[in-house]
């Protein structure tokens, strides 16, 4: 639109003769009498009065507060259970394991954490791991990956991007997957057991698929050597990330969850926004309508403790949570809505008072006219 205006103005100033129906006569410099040029475009000029402005505050307040209450209730209905298993405390079962600061200790350290669920979890349950004080949003960390490589590009596989430094090459071999994010992949494993009241220990099946985004799994991450069933061959000439125990092609036995498209790996690679975060670890699918997914009772969590966090004052957690339409438990949003709604309402009242004080005067002005 701006371009059009410029063009016409050029004609205006440049005395360009217009060969219109009148023929090639020199145009008078008289400006055109159009609404646009005379700045008389038809326009809606809302005349706002206190009567139209003030209700807006009350209406917004009245909308926000119920939304907030709804959100708060929904959030409260979500059942959530969280265990910090960092093992800082001597009494903690994981204290021993946490003393090792190394990534590649030869012997995996396992700790067993018993806990009690006071309420039965009816629907599907999401199992998360949570990390604190872990700056997954640090720029140098976020940059330290090669999306081309992860997308299955053969060239990038063997020549990782510079961004991956210092995790691009190891012993003159390209690292696959390269970069600090991949290198620091979360490698604790959880196993959950239900301690039946009759004494048996039932392992609860944890599903490790469906935890990653569809686009990630199917578009963003792809194994090199398209459709090559032999991943080992596809990753020929690369080496595993320094901190990893196994190469990338041995992450899982299932071929559609191995290599770059391993869902645990994909979830890790989707970096968190803030230094305290959760990541989906497993899903405990609802099996039947009759039995709750996780009945009330005693449980045991067996953690293979590999991931060192104490070196940087980090914390590790395991979270079990049911979900609703708004995802996990999130009381903040509800409270925020209620607060802002109340502020709106309050402002409305204040403005109303101000209006009443001045309104009288404005009425008198009307009369004097």
């Amino acid at each position, binding site marked *: *639109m*701006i371009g059009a205006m410029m063009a016409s*103005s050029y004609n*205006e100033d440049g005395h360009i003769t217009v060969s219109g129906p009148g023929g090639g006569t020199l145009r*008078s410099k008289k*400006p*055109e009498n159009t609404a646009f040029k*005379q*700045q008389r*475009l038809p*326009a*809606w*000029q809302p005349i*706002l*009065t206190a009567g139209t*402005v003030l209700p*807006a505050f009350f209406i917004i307040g009245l909308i*926000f507060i119920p*939304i907030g209450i709804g959100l708060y209730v929904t959030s409260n209905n979500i059942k959530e259970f969280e265990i910090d298993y960092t093992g800082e405390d001597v009494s903690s079962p994981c204290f021993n394991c946490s003393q090792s600061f190394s990534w590649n200790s030869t012997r995996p350290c396992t700790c067993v954490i018993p806990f009690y669920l006071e309420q039965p979890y009816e629907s599907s349950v999401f199992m998360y791991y949570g990390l604190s004080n872990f*700056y997954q*949003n*640090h*720029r*140098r960390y976020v940059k*330290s990956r090669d*999306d081309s490589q*992860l*997308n299955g590009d053969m060239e990038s596989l063997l020549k990782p*991007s510079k961004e991956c430094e*210092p995790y691009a090459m190891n012993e003159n071999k390209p690292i696959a997957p390269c970069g*600090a994010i991949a*290198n620091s992949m979360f490698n604790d494993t959880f196993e959950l057991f239900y301690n039946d009241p009759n004494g048996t220990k039932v392992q609860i099946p944890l599903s490790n698929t469906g935890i990653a*985004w569809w*686009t990630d799994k199917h*578009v*963003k991450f792809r194994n090199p050597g398209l459709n090559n069933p032999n991943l080992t061959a596809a990753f020929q000439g690369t080496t595993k990330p320094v901190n990893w125990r196994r190469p990338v092609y041995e992450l899982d036995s299932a071929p559609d969850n191995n290599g770059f498209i391993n869902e645990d790996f994909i979830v890790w690679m*989707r970096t*968190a*926004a*803030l*230094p*305290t*975060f*959760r990541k989906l670890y497993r899903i405990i699918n609802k099996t039947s309508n009759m039995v709750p997914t996780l009945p009330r009772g005693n449980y045991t969590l067996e953690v293979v403790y590999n991931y060192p966090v104490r070196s*940087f004052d980090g914390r590790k957690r395991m979270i079990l949570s049911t979900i609703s339409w*708004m*995802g*996990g438990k*999130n009381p*903040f*949003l509800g409270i*925020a809505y209620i607060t*802002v709604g109340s502020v*709106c309402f309050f402002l409305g009242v204040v*403005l109303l008072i*101000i209006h009443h004080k*001045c*309104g009288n005067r404005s009425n008198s*002005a009307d009369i*004097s006219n």
Partner: protein
Amino acid sequence: MAKESVESGLTWEVRANSCHYHKPKQKKSFLCFRWGRYADNLLRSYKYSPLTFLPLTLFEQFQRVANLYFLLMMVMQCVPAISSIPWYITIIPLITVLSVRGLKDLANDMARRRSDAQINSRPCDVLVSQSFSTAQWKDLFVGDVLRIHKDQVIPADLLLLCSSEPHSLCYVETADIDGETNLKYRQALSATHNELTSHPSEEALAAFDGVVLCEEPNNRLYTFRGQLHWRGECLLLDNQHILLRGTVLRNTQFAYGLAIYTGTDTKILRNCGKIRVKTTRTEKVFNKVVMGIILSVLLAALLLAIGSGVFSSWVMSHTGVLTPLVVGGNPIYTGFLIFWSYIILLSPAMPIALYITFEVIHTVHSKFIGWDLEMYWPQADKPAQARNTSLSEELGQVGYLLSDKTGTLTQNRLLYRQCCIAGEIYGDASVRAEDVEPMDLSWNPFSRGGLFMSAPRLVETLRGQKCPLSIQFFSALSLCHTVMAEWKEEAPVYQAASPDEEALVGAARELGWVFLSRTRDFIVVSELGVTRQYQLLALLDFTSQRRRMSVLVREPEGGLKLYCKGADIVILERLQKDCPYQERVEKALELFAQACLRTLCVAVRSVPEASWEQWSKTLAQSAAMETCDREAVLEKLYDQMERDLQLLGVTAIEDRLQEGVPETIALLQQAGIKVWVLTGDKKETAVNIGYSCKLLDPDTRLLEWQELRQILQSPDPGVSFSKARQTDLWVVDKERAGAKTAVVLSGLELAEFDQRPEWGSTFMRLAEQCQSVLCCRVTPGQKADIVTLVRKHTTSVTLSIGDGANDVNMIKTAHVGVGIAGVEGGQAVQNADFALSQFRFLQRLLLVHGRWSYRRISLFLRYFLFKTCSFALVHIWFGCFNGFSAQSLYEPWFIALYTVFYTATPIMLVAFFEQDVSAESSLKWPELYKCGQRQELSSPLMLALSLLYAVYTSLVLFFIPFGVFYNTAFDYQTMAVTVAMAATFTAIIEVVLVTKYWTKFNVAAVCVSFVLFFICTRITHSTRLFQRSPRDYVFIGASDKAFVNPVVWLTALLTAWTAVLPSLTAYALNVILTVRDKQKVHSASNQPMELRSQMRRGTSLRRSSYALSQGARPGRHIISATSFRSTVPTVDEKVTASNNLTRPLSAFK
């Protein structure tokens, strides 16, 4: 000789006809080196040559801090170690800005080059080896002898050597220099006249080998000091002998002159002033804010960098995932890099798009000015024109209007409207001149029209010869003047030194008393068809002290008559006792004064033969005197003759104002604008115009120099005391005349300000309380000085308006220069920022376009600051939660598109179309204009508030999503999309609140921006783009998931709403509180503006002026041979020269 001349300051040496002497000393320059003395006559107003264009334009553009800043940003973004956003995000807009500006400057420069070339190639006749050949102006050189033809523009400052007229007189029109359209006389030295005209002129001129010693080139238009050394004689030179560049030779067949100053040395070019780049006040405030933002960004970056250093050292001391990532393992080096990264990351707070948009908006505003039909002048087919496109908002803040008079306020047409003869008033001034029924003057073969007076009764009286007084009245008008008649097509064409005289003689011609011709001793007049020849015995000249002139003639019948015309006070006190009609005439004078007409009294006296003989003897004696008091003696003699007069009548002349001038001035004054008049004209004329255009009220007290000087001088150190005295003065005034005071100054008096700079501020404080200030007899340079004075001592925006070359300097000096595209040369328009065809269009330009423009641009700037800062500052808060690592919270593509695609169009349309009140209301309630003068919308405080609001918004934009996403499974990309969404929503809601004038474009733009955000986000997150370049489009799928997530939506909406809540509250408060104010404004000014044109004027304030332009005795040239018959011309010249040297400017008093 040389020594002497150096002592007297006459160091400029010009040798006639000696090219070889001057050529080697020609002024030359290479880069910044300059040498040589004499400038060539080439006009160079252009700046660039093909070689220098690129470096110069780049140099100029990078003087703008912003451009330099962007360049730095771009360079930094190319460094991979610190680049937090890709480099291409800055370079494309930067190159656009630079090239658009550069091309615009180039185009302007080309236009200047063309107009220069046109002037430089004007032809003129130069004497080359004994014959004149045509050359171009640019080939002229100091020492050349030129021949100037009639109606030719004079190409350089010349010494007049001789002319084709007797006594080597010549006439010049100085309209381009001082705005006066009447003719001025110049006369060559008698020595050169006698020697050079006696022989065939070309040979004599070629042999002329005089040496001129004079002052160094300067800008004083009305003085010249010099000597001509020729044939062993030393002759004094003064302004009378100089023809200035830019003046036009009139009524003279040829004039020969010697070039003294050429090119940049000429007085007119010295008066031109420098081209300065004008920036608006808003822009200046804004630039300060930009500097503030840059500094804050630097500070924030520094703090964040320190934070980063601390964080890095913490990371170093704890083995963790990040430890190997610390650059070089050195926290300080990391902090250093992070500093630059944050500067880049925060740079969108001050985006380059702002400057592009700013230019576009200015351009559109300028177009609107050009498109306005109400400012189109159909007679000349000229629309208004904004030549400088970047000043439009300044028009909304004008505090001082400094106006030229001639051609700007007045049409420079003097019309004979009324007269009073023998107590009878003829004509009616209440009828507009255009509406006057033309009288039937077909009986008069010499009638050429142009009389705007309808008085059939007068014609009857005259033709019937019923009233001897009326016959004498018109005889006086046709005889008592210094007009020259030139015959063209069987009719006399009058050339007058003063337009007043021309009007009087013209009126007499229309009514049958036709001045046919004059020779040295005779005046031929056709009286109702009878040709009579009067012998001219003496011409008693006009001076500004005498304020009258007389002629002594011998009638064909043999009687001696003295006809006298002059200001009423002077004439009335010289009347014979118990003169009839005196009372009625005085009443008529009052009436005329009320109608703002200029009046002159006309009187006659019959002189007895005896007294004439005696008088003429004494006159001849005293004229021969060489002493300085000759003037005084002459004056006394004249006084003896001009007494016992018999009053014939009064003439009333209307100085035609431009259409709508009084209304416009009244409206502008209501809008709080101070209107000053600066004119090269005389004080009387200026004051008269002041009254007639309602600048001064009838009861306005005029504060003249004497009084003002006292006030300014009074107790020297104590400005405070003098202030007290002033207030005394004002108190007295308030009681008497309602503080209506106007200051009247003349150029000479203004010159004192140069010596006493401390008076400036006192004067301005005084002037602020005055109704107006009139400055008369000011040179172009002084006009500019006054503008500078106002600029220096007030914070107001000044606007100069003028039409002639003499206004160029002040037009350039003022914040805003407006040129009236009038009859005079287009120089004013060439140098002006805005060109109008009529003075009255100024009200629309200021009150409508200026006001709107100011409002629009202020809104735009504030909104832009808000939107970009709130958007960019988020990174500071995010930095606290990502280890101060300069991680961006947005996708790079969002950063690139946000300012341009998602949020630019709606605010741009607001800046194009916003109208708080319509054009009609703006003119109806001029008080609304004061908002701009007080800078209510763009004050530093307002901008600071916007910034504060932006900081609040950035906090909200970060911390609400932070609360929602803390310790959840939401990833970085989802949060980025959420915050981006919230930022876009905030910007859109805010622009909705700003917009008060919803055209369909505004609605469309808001909708489009909204939709565009979603479309563009989806596109940049699409699979296809990712597959093409996986590293650049890593946000694949982020928005697909986010846009269907209710938490994201709820968060974004809550964030946006919370962000705009303060603005909304302020808006609501505004609505509640201003309803009252608006009604007040409406009720206060609802009565239509009343013009006090019909107001009575106090009896004592009757004005009369004898408006003869040059005080310097114009009659002398005409009758020099008659009245000074016995004097030796050479002596006379020398004496005059020395006299003039001692009191160079007294003539203008």
